[in-house]
């Protein structure tokens, strides 16, 4: 068992509205959205800004995904700037920017990390377990500017350098390409076809329409039919557009505190029972994400999670599994031990994984059903479910949930519970 099990809690959560693109107003800038999300998380649990002693941000951006653009003077003037960094508050939001603009006066730690929200949350949890901090704000801001995602920088060059010599030169297009090749291998290994993914896709898209904080419920509440799904245009075959998550502008924040402090705050604490992190790709062909390598690595990650919590897959009430793109979900269902290798696509039926099913998966729709939050919503929804605040998506009797955010091999996971254990 992990020494921190049950000693730390997620006490507060905050979520910005969602937008497809930034409209270049100061009040919808990434900095403003980050401040809104953090303030909402503080209000949610009843902490004051001067009681926060740590901030950990995954500041973004995914550099190079958008072309250069001018920083508008009106936006700059609306906030206190980080010296020497004109992008801060616009394409990214650092811990320093947040501390300045939100008046966080009692900080002992202000960290920025390159990780996704899952590993950033684990870092915040460790800060509390170690005693360095009592109340840490975790921030993930995610931008989406005009123009096509990723059609810039090295991808738009006439030459291919660095790792691109062996990837871009052949037209390999990035993570979705990697996952397409990964999924072909999966389909071949287990004798499946892309159409076998339809049930999972329809469940996620339908769940997303029940999610009041997600993009589709807010802006495009249209049902996806099986016919539409099966006719969806290919992005990187065998991944179609409905298997992908729509980029959006959003920010999410969490307040992580000692269990003791959380019990004195406004909401019922959601206890961190276990954590596990991926080892980061290393070794031969690490960047290839070969199916067999990823199966070994993610089975090991899941086992570390179960061992850290002293809880096994049969005791879990729901699972929020990273789904960008959707083809990751069957891989994670299998490696987390919810079914045998090769059986996840049959497992993904409404009776099994729907909101009223035996093991609900991604009850708010995941990133595919609710928009690209890069995992913010995997955690946000887990907290809502464990507090009994998920409205029409509420899983009856939800007391233990598992969260995984990230790509194969390099993800991070938490086991969260209503009880401290």
């Amino acid at each position: 068992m992990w020494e921190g099990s049950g000693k730390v809690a997620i006490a507060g959560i905050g979520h910005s509205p969602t937008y497809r693109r930034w409209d270049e107003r100061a009040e919808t800038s990434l900095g403003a959205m980050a401040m809104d999300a953090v303030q909402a998380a503080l209000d949610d649990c009843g902490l004051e800004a001067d009681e926060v002693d740590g901030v950990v941000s995954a500041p973004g951006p995914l550099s190079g995904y958008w072309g250069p653009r001018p920083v508008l003077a009106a936006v700059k003037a609306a906030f206190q700037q980080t010296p020497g960094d004109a992008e801060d508050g616009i394409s990214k939001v650092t811990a320093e920017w947040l501390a300045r603009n939100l008046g966080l006066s009692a900080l002992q730690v202000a960290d920025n990390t390159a990780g996704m929200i899952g590993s950033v949350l684990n870092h915040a949890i460790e800060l509390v377990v170690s005693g360095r901090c009592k109340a840490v704000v975790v921030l993930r801001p995610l931008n989406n500017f005009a123009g096509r995602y990723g059609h810039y920088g090295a991808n738009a060059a006439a030459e291919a350098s660095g790792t691109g010599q062996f990837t871009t030169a052949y037209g390999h297009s990035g993570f979705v390409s990697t996952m397409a090749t990964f999924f072909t291998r999966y389909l071949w290994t287990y004798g499946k076809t892309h159409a076998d993914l339809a049930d999972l896709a329809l469940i996620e898209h339908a769940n997303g329409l029940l999610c009041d904080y997600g993009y589709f419920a807010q802006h495009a509440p249209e049902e996806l039919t099986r016919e539409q799904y099966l006719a969806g245009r290919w992005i990187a075959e065998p991944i179609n557009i409905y298997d992908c998550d729509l980029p959006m502008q959003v920010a999410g924040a969490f307040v992580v505190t000692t269990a003791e402090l959380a019990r004195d705050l406004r909401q019922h604490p959601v206890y961190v029972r276990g954590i596990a992190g991926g080892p980061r790709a290393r070794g031969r062909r690490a960047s290839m994400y070969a199916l067999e390598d990823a199966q070994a690595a993610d089975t090991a990650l899941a086992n570390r999670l179960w061992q850290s919590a002293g809880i096994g897959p049969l005791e879990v009430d729901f699972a929020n599994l990273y789904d960008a793109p959707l083809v990751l979900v069957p891989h994670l269902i299998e490696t987390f031990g919810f079914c045998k290798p090769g059986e996840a696509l049959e497992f993904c039926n409404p009776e099994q994984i729907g909101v009223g099913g035996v093991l609900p998966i991604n009850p708010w729709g995941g990133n595919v059903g609710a928009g690209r939050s890069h995992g913010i919503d995997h955690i946000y929804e887990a907290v809502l479910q464990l507090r009994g605040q998920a409205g029409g998506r509420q899983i009856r009797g939800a007391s233990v949930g598992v969260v995984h955010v990230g790509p194969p091999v390099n993800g991070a996971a938490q086991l969260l519970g209503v009880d401290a254990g």
Partner: protein
Amino acid sequence: MERPIPIPDDVSKPFWEAANERRLVAQFCVACSEWQHPPERACAECGATPLEFRELSGAGTIYSVHVEHDSRVVVMQQHQPYIVATVLANESPYAVFLTNLPGTSAGDVAFGKDGEQSVHIGARVAVEFEEVGAGRFVPQFRVVS
């Protein structure tokens, strides 16, 4: 086929020099007795340096494959839909190459076990070299029956 032209660096230079002579080479770690490609500064497994570039037979099999319909690689968009296959050299599963499988088209690809197409996982391939500029070649692989 117009494509982004690879720019060699100090690690990959021997690989591209060999390709320009129409030879396929890859790094070999003498300490591990194992190959690795793409090239790196040190053996990704044991950290040993330097690594020798040795010649491969050029024969391999398709590990997996996908088809790009909406690529982010701007120069390649004119070729859509195009195949990107992952090939493992016969000598080692750690000598990993990408290829566009010249001589095939997107409709030839079998995804899963759903077809009789020529491009499928496990299909045998052999190296050839595509001229991308005066005297400059990139390795490609062709399906062999």
